[in-house]
């Protein structure tokens, strides 16, 4: 087996193993998410606080607290 074949075998094996590991990691991630306690918060159901705000002009400058 020459060097080219060895290197290409390494690459093919590395690629296939990475794909397998990536699929495994993904399943692990899904498992972890499933085990976590679920939050009741669903932003899609929340009303968005959004109203037009008319700012007052900013007063003269000082280093005093607002």
């Amino acid at each position, binding site marked *: 087996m020459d060097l080219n074949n060895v290197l*290409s075998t390494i*690459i093919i094996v590395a690629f296939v193993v990475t794909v397998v590991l990536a699929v495994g990691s993904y399943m692990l991630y899904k498992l972890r998410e499933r085990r976590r306690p679920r*939050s009741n918060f669903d932003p899609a159901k929340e009303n968005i*606080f959004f*109203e037009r705000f008319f*700012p007052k002009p900013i007063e003269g400058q000082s280093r005093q607290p607002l």
Partner: protein
Amino acid sequence: MRPGYFAILLLGLGVVLAALGSMVVLLLNIPYEFSNAWLTVGVTMLLFFLIVVIARYIILLWLGYLHHLESRIEEDDPLDLFEPPVTIIVPAYNEGAVIESAIRSLLALEYPAYEVLVVDDGSTDDTYARAAALEGRYGDVVLRVVSKSNNGKASALNTGISLARHPFVLCMDGDSRLSRDTLKASLRHFRDPNVGAVAGNVKVVNRRNLWTRLQALEYIEGLNMARRAQAFARTVNIIPGPIGIFRRDVLQQLGGYETDTFAEDADLTLKLLTAGWQIKYEERAVAYTEAPEGLLDLLKQRYRWTRGILQALGKRKAWLIAPKIGAGVWLSLNTMLFEAVIWPTVNVIGNLVFAIGALTMGIPEYVLYWWMMLTILDVAAALYAVAMEEEELMLVPYAVLYRLFFIVVVDVAKMFASLEELFKVRMTWGKLERAGRL
């Protein structure tokens, strides 16, 4: 740009073109024997993959370089100062440990007059108390702190937009830091009345392990290179969550952030684009942010990004089909779909088909040549992108690992996320774990 980096940039460009040429030569020399249908399908897919790779790199590099030149020309005009007052909106949820240092860094930006508005999103720790203790006026900079019930980042930003006192707003993450000339560099783009927003440059700050260094490279080579190219056409399709600068009245007209997708930043960007606003990119407006340090957190982030992008695109299906207000927006939306779904799928399946095909045809050495050229292409593109941003040259060698396994892992996650979005699998909400490195 410093002369050394300019030379690296040219070198990177040269190697990219050489690698692309070699790929074409390699493909033309494969001993095609279309003895069965599977082989025909495999070779056709490979050719398609090659054309896509070449087209993608050429378009991204060329448009990115044009944008770079354009930025330098605009930057060199000292008579065109444009420094309107800005409100920086900082949504904060349980950031008690870092909120004081975050505020102090925001008070030290180089800009004539601006306001920092901290929106405490119902934190259960002492975030509000710590921030409120600093409230006040610091020269021409005003710090205000407001608190609201917990409704998520989008809601906190919407509250900030409503309460902002200035015509421009910078929306960021509570756990990000900005470069000192962020405002100066980005606000100048609003001289053009057609520009509705400017996307900033996100950089990974916690370059501590292999995963975060690979992400640092990915942000520079993958995300920013694409964003720079889109910016030349004024159609940036994602204003990143850690740094986006907007006209406040435009956000108010459009209804601000929405919470029906997992990528509120992508959704808002598409809202602006489809309303006819131009979006630019400013690479000197930098937000330093923490990237996930572990594999599972990285997968979680990419899963959410992919599904969020697909949800945002799903709300605008008609815009994907035919141009409504110009080819630029149509192209930008389709590019988004391509980068989120099509490209990762083609990358994984294309490489698998090639590897299996080369083995069954008895020409495994072609896999070696193919992989080497893709890697050379990635290394050259990394050189080019790193030089463009004058970043750490030590990131460039990571391009080898980037090609060998990082991009495969990320693309597999994107493929699954796309499938789950297609089949409407239920998603859960959750905050990414941060290590608190900032």
